[in-house]
């Protein structure tokens, strides 16, 4: 028999996601229904990554939630084969890529599921997906298209 032991807060990479802990809880609420969103400043029009509580360009808190493109391409890739942190050991090996979102400048770091490192290529097309943990917390990853 195995029991799941909750990691102490200071060993747990997953952000706390609800209203009690973060002003960007809407990001996670949106993820739960498959939306990939971030904040945009209504005052200076700056689009942020990651989502913000306060605009880093103008200091405004008048922000709105907007959808991000859910497709993109590999700008660079690697994989983790050795030396995983706690909570990631059982996932080894896994692929990571900088994903250039379509139409935007952001190159977001993401795990890429469903592919081996040997089969990755710069420029390869990817699409957004979400993963949900046992405790209900979510995060996003990407996977190859088609």
């Amino acid at each position, binding site marked *: 028999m195995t029991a799941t032991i909750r990691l*102490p*807060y200071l060993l747990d990479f997953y952000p706390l996601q609800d*209203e*009690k*802990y973060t002003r960007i809880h809407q990001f996670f609420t949106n993820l739960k229904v498959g939306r990939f969103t971030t904040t945009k400043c209504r005052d200076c029009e700056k689009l942020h990554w990651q989502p913000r509580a306060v605009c880093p360009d103008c200091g405004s808190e008048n922000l709105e939630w907007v959808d991000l493109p859910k497709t993109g391409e590999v700008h660079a890739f690697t994989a983790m084969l050795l030396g995983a942190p706690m909570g990631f050991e059982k996932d080894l090996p896994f692929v990571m890529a900088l994903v250039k979102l379509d139409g935007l400048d952001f190159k977001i770091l993401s795990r890429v599921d469903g592919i081996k490192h040997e089969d990755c290529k710069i420029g390869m097309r990817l699409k957004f997906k979400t993963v949900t943990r046992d405790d209900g917390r979510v995060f996003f990853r990407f996977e190859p298209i088609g």
Partner: protein
Amino acid sequence: MRKVAIVGGGLAPFGVRQATWKELAQEAGGATFRDIKNLERKDVDSLFVGAAMPERFAFQSHVAPMVAEQVGVTPTKVITRTELACASGQSAIRMAYACIAAGLSDIALCIGVEKMNIPDPPEMQTSMACVLDREFDGVQGASAPPFFALCANRHMHDYGTTREQMAMVSAKNHHFSTTNPFAQFQKDIPVEKVLTSPMVAPPLRLFDCSGITDGAAGVVLTTAERAKEFTDTPMYILGSGQCSMGSNLANYKSFSTWFPLKEAAKEAYRSAKIGPGDLDLAEVHDCFTISEIMEYEDLGFCEKGKGGKFIEDGKSDLGGKIPINTRGGLLGTGHPLGATGIAQAIELMQQFRSSVPRQRLVDNAEIGMAHNLSGAANVHSILIYGRNPP
């Protein structure tokens, strides 16, 4: 050496915040830039981040560039985080001061931030305890409340300081914090309530202790010469002192006199060319009620052993000899470690500007002190600020 001034600053509200470490930094950055009309983010050339334990409380290291991004600055001269436990915020100001004085930076932002309320309180307490010598003192169960309780026990024994006198410190500072919308606690806590609150580490009770607090604060420093570009009311750095003695408790000379505080005060007064009698007000590190009483003495506001009498006689209250902790102190506003030293500077600046609420205003204040101890009071850090240039 160039003269240095603080030209503005702002706060994120202190308390049990429904916000992450990063979001608190964002709020402090936003508030700071709102306070300084003519300053653009791109003009900031340096950043100093005061933070005691983001590695533990926020599971995040290398926080200086993270704060730069959160607040929208791009340091091209100097960037670092300063850590000095409870004095991490003041340490950020001190390093900005040094870099500007030396000519290594022209406009420096300091952000102090701490997120201390985490889901599991024992894990928070565990992190707090490693501020002391973990291998030899922490393993014995020591953390901040027991350490200051030992000082209180010894101070009561050596000088006859009473529980009532300690409670008066808490009541005074909580009363001040009723005027401060940024404070964690905004209700009066009368002496009687302090004396009947739950015992934490005898003789210290719950309201003898500052809170577990989330918060952030920011200030901007530049040369005295350029300060008027950004504000009509700069606050100048007149002097500083800092001293460290002992780390493991066994190596302390005394527990009822803080010798490193006496040394730091001597150097602060010397460098500012003033004496304690020249101060119009002071922000001192009241992490526990006994701390403020000992600080009255070791900062030279009263005779050694008469700190209890000093609060009893109202000498540290508004209208007294030297009003202490008018923003509410750590007891009233909470103590987000990295933010505290910066929040103290903001209070003095706002006092000099006469922009604090009437109920806590010290009329015509011109010289003020900000003091922080850190850890088990083995380091004491002091800055002396003035409304007029040195």
